[in-house]
C-alpha cells in the first residue's frame, strides 16, 4: 500500500508541475497587465505542435525543445504586439471575447497546417525507461523528468522574479503599473517580456506534455480550465500562489481519482461507488476552489496590492 501511495503522490506532483508551468504564465500576464488570456491554452497547444514539427525536422527531442522555446517566445511577442497590446485598457469581458476568438482561430490554423489527425510526439531515448522505486515498482523516467524540469523552471522563475532587475520591474508593474510608467520605465517593453515569458512557459509545458497526451486541435482548452482553477486558488498575479494552487489541484485530482472510489466502496454498494466515485473525483477540484474562494476570495497567497 505505501508504494501505491508514493506512486500516486508522484503522479499528483507531476500533474501539478505541468499545471504550474501553464498557470505561472497565465497569472503573470493577469497580474502585470490585468489581461485575461483565454488563448493561453493555445500557446500550450502551439508548443506541443512546434515540438512535433521540430522533432521531425531535427530528429532529436532536445534540439526541438530549444527551438520550441524560441518559437514560443516569438509567438508570444507577435501575439502581444498585434493583439494583446490593444486590449489592456479594455474591460475583462472584451478581453475574454477577443481571446476566445483567438482560440477558435488557433484551432483552425493548426488543422490547416498539420491536418486533422493527432500528431505523434516521442519521448527522448534518455528518458525512455523506468526508475526503480521501492525495489520492483518502476516509475516512468519521463515523468520524473517532467518533475525535475518543472522544479528547475520554478526555481529559475523565482530567482528571475525575486532577484533580478527585470523581475523587480515586473513585480512593481503587478503592484502599481501607473507608478512604474511614471517613473520612466518602458512599461511596454516590460509587458512584451512578460507576455513572451508566459508564452515560453506554456510552450515548454506543451513540449513536455506532448509525449503523454494527444497532440490535436483543442488540446489546450482542457488544461486551460484547470489552469484557471489553479490561479484563482493561488491568487491572481502570484507565482508562488500558482505553485501552491497547482500542487493542490494536481494532488487532489490525482488522489481523488486514485482513492475516492475505494473509500466509497466501504460505505455504499460497489456499483454505486463505481459511478459516484469518478464523478465526485472530477468535481472535487471545483469544490475545493469554491470552498477556498468562500473563505479567502483573494486566493491563498495573493499579491499585496496598493
Amino acid at each position: 500500500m505505501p508504494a501505491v501511495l508514493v506512486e500516486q503522490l508522484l503522479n499528483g506532483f507531476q500533474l501539478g508541475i505541468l499545471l504550474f508551468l501553464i498557470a505561472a504564465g497565465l497569472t503573470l500576464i493577469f497580474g502585470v497587465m490585468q489581461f485575461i488570456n483565454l488563448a493561453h491554452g493555445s500557446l500550450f497547444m502551439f508548443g506541443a505542435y512546434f515540438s512535433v514539427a521540430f522533432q521531425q525536422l531535427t530528429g532529436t527531442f532536445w534540439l526541438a525543445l530549444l527551438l520550441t522555446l524560441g518559437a514560443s517566445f516569438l509567438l508570444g511577442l507577435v501575439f502581444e504586439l498585434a493583439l494583446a497590446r490593444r486590449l489592456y485598457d479594455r474591460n475583462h469581458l472584451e478581453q475574454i471575447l477577443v481571446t476566445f476568438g483567438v482560440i477558435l482561430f488557433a484551432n483552425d490554423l493548426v488543422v490547416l497546417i498539420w491536418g486533422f489527425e493527432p500528431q505523434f510526439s516521442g519521448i527522448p531515448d534518455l528518458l525512455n525507461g523506468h526508475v526503480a522505486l521501492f525495489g520492483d515498482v518502476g516509475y516512468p523516467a519521463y515523468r520524473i523528468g517532467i518533475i525535475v524540469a518543472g522544479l528547475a523552471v520554478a526555481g529559475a522563475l523565482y530567482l528571475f522574479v525575486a532577484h533580478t532587475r527585470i523581475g523587480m520591474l515586473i513585480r512593481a508593474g503587478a503592484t502599481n503599473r501607473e507608478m512604474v510608467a511614471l517613473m520612466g520605465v518602458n512599461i511596454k517593453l516590460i509587458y512584451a517580456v512578460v507576455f513572451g515569458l508566459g508564452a515560453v512557459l506554456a510552450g515548454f509545458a506543451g513540449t513536455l506534455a506532448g509525449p503523454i497526451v494527444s497532440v490535436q486541435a483543442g488540446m489546450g482548452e482542457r488544461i486551460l480550465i484547470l489552469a484557471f482553477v489553479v490561479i484563482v486558488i493561488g491568487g491572481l498575479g502570484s507565482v508562488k500562489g500558482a505553485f501552491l494552487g497547482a500542487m493542490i489541484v494536481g494532488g487532489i485530482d490525482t488522489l481523488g481519482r486514485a482513492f475516492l472510489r475505494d473509500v466509497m466502496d466501504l460505505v455504499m454498494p460497489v456499483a454505486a461507488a463505481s459511478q459516484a466515485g469518478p464523478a465526485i473525483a472530477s468535481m472535487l477540484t471545483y469544490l475545493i476552489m469554491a470552498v477556498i474562494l468562500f473563505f479567502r476570495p483573494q486566493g491563498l497567497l495573493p499579491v499585496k496590492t496598493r
Partner: protein
Amino acid sequence: MLKFIMATAVSVGLAMPAVAQETKIQVGLIFSLSGSGAVLGQEMKRGTDLAFELLDGKLGGIQAEFIYEDDQQKPELGIQAANKLVRSDRVDFVVGPSYSNVMMAIHGPVTRSKTFLLSPNPAPAPLAGAECDPFYFATPFQNDQTSEAIGQYVNDQGFKSVYILGPNYQAGRDFLAGFKRYFEGEIVGEVYTPLDQTDFSAELTKVRASNPDAVFVAYPGGLGIQFVKQYEQAGLKDQLPLFTAFTVNGSVLPAMGEAALGVKSASHWAVNLDNPGNKRFVEAFEAKYGSVPSEFAAQAYDVIMLIDSAVAATGGNLDDPDAVRAAIKAANFESVRGEFTFNNNHHPIQDYYLLNVSKDDQGRLVQLSEGVIIEDFVDNYAKDCKM
C-alpha cells in the same frame, strides 16, 4: 367518363416530365467534416470520394450527385442538414452521420420522410432493437458487437480476471457493458473516466496494484492515444496484455507510435482481409491517398457500393420503396468484408476478427487480422426488432 379520361390523361401528362427529370441519383452525406470529430468524418469522405471515383460518378449506371453536409459532431446541425437534404434537395439516399449522438437526432427526421438512411459508422442499440425502422440500415455493425467480440476472445483465451476502463458517457458505458456480456471471468475493476481527462497515471497505478490477468479499454480518439501511450510508458504493456475496442484505428495509430505495437482489438474488417472487394479498395485507396485506409473509410466506401448495387438491381427506378428496400437488403455487392448479409433488423451478420498492431513491410503501423473470433455474429438487439 370523359372527365375521368381527361383527369387520367392530365395526371399522366403531369407525371411524365417528373420521370423524365429523374436522370440523377442524389445522395446526401452528413459527416463530421470540421470540429473535434473531423478526423473520422474526413476519413469517411475519403472512402466515399474513392467509391465515387471508382464508379465513374455513377450509381447503378446512372449519373449520381453527392451532396456533402457538415454536422460538426453536433446533433442540432445534423438535424438542420438532414432536413435540408430530405426536404429541399429531396435526395434519394442519406448516408451518415459519423457519430451516434447525431444519429439519434437525425434518425427520426430522415426515416419519417421515407428516405433511406444508411449508416456508415454509428449503430446505436435502440435503433437495432425496438426502434428499428424499415428505412434505416446500419451497414458497418451494431455498436456493442466490437466489445462483445473482444470479450468473447478474452474469455476463450482463458483470462480469468480483467480490469476494464472507459470514458464516462453513454457509448463508453455501452462498450464496457458489451464486454461484460461475453466475458465470464472476474471483473477486478471497472472505471469510467471523465471525457476531458488527459492524465491516466492514477488509474494505471491502480491497475497495476490490482494485479489482473489482462486489461480491456474502450477509449475513442484522443483519449485512446493518451491511454495507450501512458500504458506503455508505465511499463504495463509488457506485463499485462491490453485488449481494446474502438481505441486503435487507422487515424490514431500514427500518433500512438510504437506504443501501440501488440495492442489487440476486434473488428469486422481488417486491411489484410483476403477478398476481391477489399483488395480492390485497399489498392485504390493507397494509390489515391498514399496511406493505409482505416475502417471508417472502408465502411463509408462499402455503403456507396451497396447503394450502387441496389440502384442497379431496381434498374434505376427508385419510386417503389419496397423494391429499393429489398434491393438494399439483398446486399448483392462485393463488400470489403467478403460475404455480407443483413439481419431482420437491417444490421449485418458478419465475421469478427482479432486485430493486432504490427508494422507492414514499409514500416508503417497497421492493424492486421490474425483470425476469426466469431463467425456470423448476430447482434444482441435483433430479437427486440419487430421487422
